[in-house]
């Protein structure tokens, strides 16, 4: 009798698992063609099994459907996001507890904005103590989206964290850069000025930074 119950339970759970894998997300139905639903569902299942958050994958498919993008390009874009999530998760993986989904998504955003996985790792390490990895990564990505070179964006965020800035201070950086840009600076100049203003100049040898011999860029 016990073996019968065990067998039924195992077969039931296996059937449920298979059904869950093959079930396309109802959010996609009617928003993207059936072929895209199937392909994206497979990508989502694979990402989910790898422990990655899947929300960005579904959103990218919805975005592609809304913009009338051809099927193969939607599927390709969803694969790219899946790769960015995997790269972010790997970059965040460290001795500390497993990365939060929010931090992985923020890392993927930063990679999409132009940061390398190594830079994501660096920012995440700097922000690990303050438990604000997601905010720091989003800030770094947003700085790059504004036009700050990735290396300078990383240096600025890390400098603000090392100077004891709070999570809110870090989140303010894009606004401060935009204010400086509004006054006529380039994004790179604004970031450099903010870093020096905080007494946290970017570390030597950082990529994207001009050699010292070139001197400071001038504001127009």
């Amino acid at each position, binding site marked *: 009798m016990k073996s019968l119950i065990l067998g039924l339970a195992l077969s039931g759970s296996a059937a449920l698992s298979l059904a869950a894998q093959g079930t396309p997300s109802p*959010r996609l139905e009617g928003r993207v063609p059936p072929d895209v639903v199937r392909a994206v569902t497979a990508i989502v299942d694979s990402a989910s099994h790898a422990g990655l958050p899947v929300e960005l994958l579904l*959103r990218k498919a919805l*975005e592609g459907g809304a*913009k009338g993008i051809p099927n193969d390009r939607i599927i*390709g874009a969803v694969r790219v996001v899946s790769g960015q999530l995997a790269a972010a998760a790997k970059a965040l993986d460290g001795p500390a507890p497993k990365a939060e989904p929010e931090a992985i998504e*923020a890392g993927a955003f930063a990679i999409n904005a132009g940061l390398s996985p190594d830079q994501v790792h660096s920012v995440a390490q700097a922000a690990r103590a303050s438990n604000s990895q997601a905010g720091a990564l989003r800030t770094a990505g*947003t700085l790059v*989206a*504004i036009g700050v070179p990735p290396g300078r964006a990383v240096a600025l965020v890390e400098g603000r964290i090392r100077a004891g800035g709070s999570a809110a201070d870090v989140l303010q950086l*894009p606004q401060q850069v935009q204010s400086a840009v509004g006054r006529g600076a380039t994004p790179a100049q604004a970031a450099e000025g903010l870093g020096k203003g905080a007494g946290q100049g970017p570390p030597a040898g950082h990529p994207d930074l001009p050699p010292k011999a070139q001197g400071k860029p001038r504001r127009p």
Partner: protein
Amino acid sequence: MTEDSSLDPLIVRVLDGELRPEDLPPELRVEAERAVRLLHPPVEAPVSLSPWFEQRVMAEIRRRPRPEPAAQGFLGWLLERRELRLSLRPRVWVGAAAMLALLVVAGVQWQATRAGSEVAGVGDSAYVRFTLYAPGVHSVAVAGSFNEWDPRQAPLTQTHTPGVWAGTVALPPGQHVYAFLVDGSRWLPDPASPTVDDGFGQRNSVVTVAARGRVL
């Protein structure tokens, strides 16, 4: 009340309170008074018990053997059945009322604190006004990660300034990417916001809502 055929209708009216027994003819009065006594006195008259009734009941309870306690020690003492007498004096009532009032006030304040945090949670969302200068177009909508990329959910309207379209959307905390849909076919990034690659050869704009509804 249903009418009983065995009673005179006048007696029924007495039972219904429409007439008094003394209003009836003398030959019906005795029967009416008897009917009234039958129906009303047992319920209306106060119940009075013998003054020794309580003493007799309690003496009987004490006389019966006590059940064995189910447990020994403190637990047994705690579970043992015993006579309990309560007497509440005015000052005790006042104290109890004050304690109850304190508890109610504390409870209301606790609820208010909870409601405040919930309100703050709702307040973490930000009402973001999206604006696009697009002269000569017929429709503008904003779509993004906050509305499942469904432009029907957030159409912009023309403002009084010619060519300026605007609309307000409540955004939860987090980072959102979005774009404007012009005339139902053309996607444009917000020229006033940072942009990132959308993966389809175009750019999406980025807006970040921090806690307390601050837009960064």
